[in-house]
């Protein structure tokens, strides 16, 4: 970095940040376009006539007139490429279309379901972080037994399939102990089991990553000097090494959210919660193309936003990244 006046430096950082923001926006738009395009063509590769989906689903006994009418109304009689550009045009104006099956605007449908799924994913992510941090801090630097135990728990947790974990949790906490409802009915208690189901495997992944970097950080000179200053082992871990340990986990959180959203399909179905996952499942079954496209786009958008946010969070956690921006 060339030394300059503080104002110059700030200006150049601002310029770099703007450039970076511009790149991010361009990248996001590209990702969304690619996702919309892939979804549009992929969904037409699976069997099923959209006109039938509109007229009561697979196996409908709609008349030829009704089918023709629907094909005209929805532009399904147009060449595929024309339909594609028509869709892009609609998307550009923010119009996600109307559900074939429910005949309601896709934006309204998704709007009603987004909150629940995001809340579920956010709570699960938070719990996963807490569990992972706790496990990593507890099991690192305490000798071989604790380390092996911690590793074992992490690997096991990470390998647990959602459907299995959900079944076990329901059997124990709903049927056995009767503490928590197996079907989420919008109450706080109903959220517990779904959140735990999603959080535990993720915590396993995160803890594995955190332990690696925690171990790495413990070897650093600053740890030795802090210890020399008289800080306790736990104090060092809590105050100094966690930052290091969190970095890769923060970057992973963007990925984790996407992973949680796909886990939501299973969890929302098992616990009968309304949400995007169930919406997607139903829409695929019914060949409800506008809804499928809408959900996929929305998830892609969340993904992109999370990538930006984790990028920012990493900068806050690691001052070195901030410096680089000015270079």
């Amino acid at each position, binding site marked *: 970095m060339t030394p300059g006046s503080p104002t110059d430096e700030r200006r150049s950082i601002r310029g770099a940040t703007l450039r970076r923001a511009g790149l991010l926006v361009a990248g996001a738009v590209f990702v969304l376009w690619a996702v919309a395009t892939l979804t549009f063509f992929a969904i037409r590769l699976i069997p099923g006539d959209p006109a039938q989906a509109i007229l009561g689903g697979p196996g409908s006994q709609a008349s030829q007139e009704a089918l023709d009418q629907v094909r005209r109304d929805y532009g399904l009689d147009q060449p595929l490429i024309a339909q594609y550009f028509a869709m892009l045009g609609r998307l550009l104006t923010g119009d996600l279309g109307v559900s074939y099956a429910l005949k309601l605007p896709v934006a309204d449908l998704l709007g009603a379901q987004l909150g629940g799924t995001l809340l579920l994913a956010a709570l699960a992510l938070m719990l996963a972080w807490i569990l992972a941090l706790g496990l990593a801090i507890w099991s690192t630097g305490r000798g071989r037994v604790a380390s092996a135990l911690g590793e074992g728990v992490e690997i096991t947790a990470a390998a647990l399939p959602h459907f299995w974990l959900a079944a076990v949790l329901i059997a124990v906490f709903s*049927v056995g102990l009767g503490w928590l409802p197996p079907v989420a009915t919008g109450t706080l208690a109903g959220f517990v089991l779904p959140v735990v189901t999603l959080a535990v495997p993720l915590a396993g992944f995160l803890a594995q990553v955190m332990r690696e970097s925690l171990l790495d950080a413990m070897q650093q000179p600053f740890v030795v000097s802090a210890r020399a200053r008289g800080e306790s082992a736990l104090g060092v871990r809590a105050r100094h090494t966690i930052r290091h340990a969190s970095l890769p986990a923060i970057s992973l959180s963007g990925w984790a959210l996407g992973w949680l959203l796909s886990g939501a399909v299973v969890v929302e179905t098992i616990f009968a919660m309304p949400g995007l996952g169930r919406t997607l499942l139903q829409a695929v*079954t019914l060949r409800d193309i506008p809804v499928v496209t809408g959900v996929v786009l929305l998830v892609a958008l969340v993904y992109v936003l999370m990538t930006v946010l984790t990028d920012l969070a990493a900068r806050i956690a690691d001052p070195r990244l901030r410096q680089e921006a000015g270079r």
Partner: protein
Amino acid sequence: MRAAPVTTSPTPRRIGIAAVAVVSTIALTACQAPAPEASGEPVSGGTLAYASGDAEPTCLDPHVGGNYPQALLAGQFLESLVSRDDSGEIIPWLAESWTAADDGLSWEFTLRDDVAFTDGTPLDAEAVKANVEHLKDPATQSSTGYLALGKVDRVEVVDEQVARFVMSSPDSALLESLTQPWVAIESPAGLARGMDENCQAPIGTGPFIVDEWVKQDHVSLVRNDDYTSPPADAAHDGPAYLEAIDWRFVPDSASRYAALQAGQVDVIDNPQPDTISAAKSNDSLAWLDAPRPGAANRIELNSGQAPFDDERVREAFIRAVEVDEGIDALFFGTAERSFSPLSSVEALAYSDEALFEPDLDRANALLDEAGWTERDADGYRVKDGARLTLRFPVSTNQSIPAEQSLFEQVQATAKAAGFDVVIELLDLSSWYGALAEHEYEIVSAPYTKVGPDVLRILYHSDSITPAPSGYFANLAQLDDPEVDSLLTDAASTSDADTRADLYERAQQLILEGYYLLPLYDQQNSFLLSTSVQGARAMPTVSTPTFYDAWLAD
């Protein structure tokens, strides 16, 4: 009427309407048994929580499309002109009496004069006319109800309470068709709101009213305090005992059962056979067994193309496969083997067990005779270089896991005779696609309809002609002029004995031609907490009704 064409969770199946009842000991398992014996006096009040594993409807108006999930819900708030009792007799409901003209070309229904829809609109002949017109209007996109009224040309208003159905040809199945929830009578003012609004909360005359529908979560039903029109076989008069029903959509069958065990819900549908078996030994749960009317579940043999265009090969397949043990083991004794094309619910069902006696030697002899004499290295029969392959598309939406396992046993036992059964698990759209392209030699497709007229839909050669969507109901592709004429005559005769005789002869011909392998009734059952008293399944399409139900402590 097609059964539940859109079902994201496994469709249930089960035999002999049984109402397993009440505080632990009394279990009625008679076919079409009445409501569970009530213990104690009915009490008013309370909300019943129901967890449904059937797909959430996309529209609550069963006129639109017309599938089983819609019927399940509609039965709580809509009512039909007539109903059917446990013995199969047609009984009064919204219509108190009816007469048919001698030529069968018109029917007059006299409506009750003390009934109003829950929006205050009176039930009159004009309302019935509006409903039939709504069902026949292509814009309604009715499929099941539209077919049920296929021979109804129009409805004329004779006077305020008398509606005349003018027929395009006589229809002996008209009354049976009219019992179905897919042709239930809705408020004309409600229909006039347009499809979008009516789909959210149809207005009927039923014991409950749709209060709210939260998509992917639940439908709230509240009691209709002015209710006056129970069907003639109901246990009481006046409003329902229950104050409300909380109807939840819980697609996962294990979660549904857990919710029932944990007391979070009072009733669940679509229990899997292993669950029913477990519930039977639980004193606080009762099993309501309500097989669907219409066709039995069966494997159809596609006689429209090789190799099953040869009757010897069809018989060889049926003699080769063994399903009895599989049904017993996989369904935990909850399903009874059928030997009829019709559900055991149907009084006119005809069975012939002897035709389905497994006989591997006979199967082998028949195949040799039909020219399938050679076997390839894998043990499958070959003729002119082609293997004896049977494509078997299976709908994962309509066949529960137990049924899919049964089909694997069919595959294994058929192999002994040299059949190469290729099972393909498909989602509903792909499955219909395979059928439309005739890419199957064997297939199993449920079909729910009240009355034996389902035989005409499934086995009359007219049903080979596909609808514009490619759908056709005669999947055996049975094309026999004698069967056609028996079914046509049966559908138009007005004499009950003649009708019974014609249907019996038609069923004989269908069974003796080895076009199908009956398995069991279309399974349909419910598990109830024993605190739910007085619930029963309608003897029409076996949907549960909670009008007579109450919650005991």
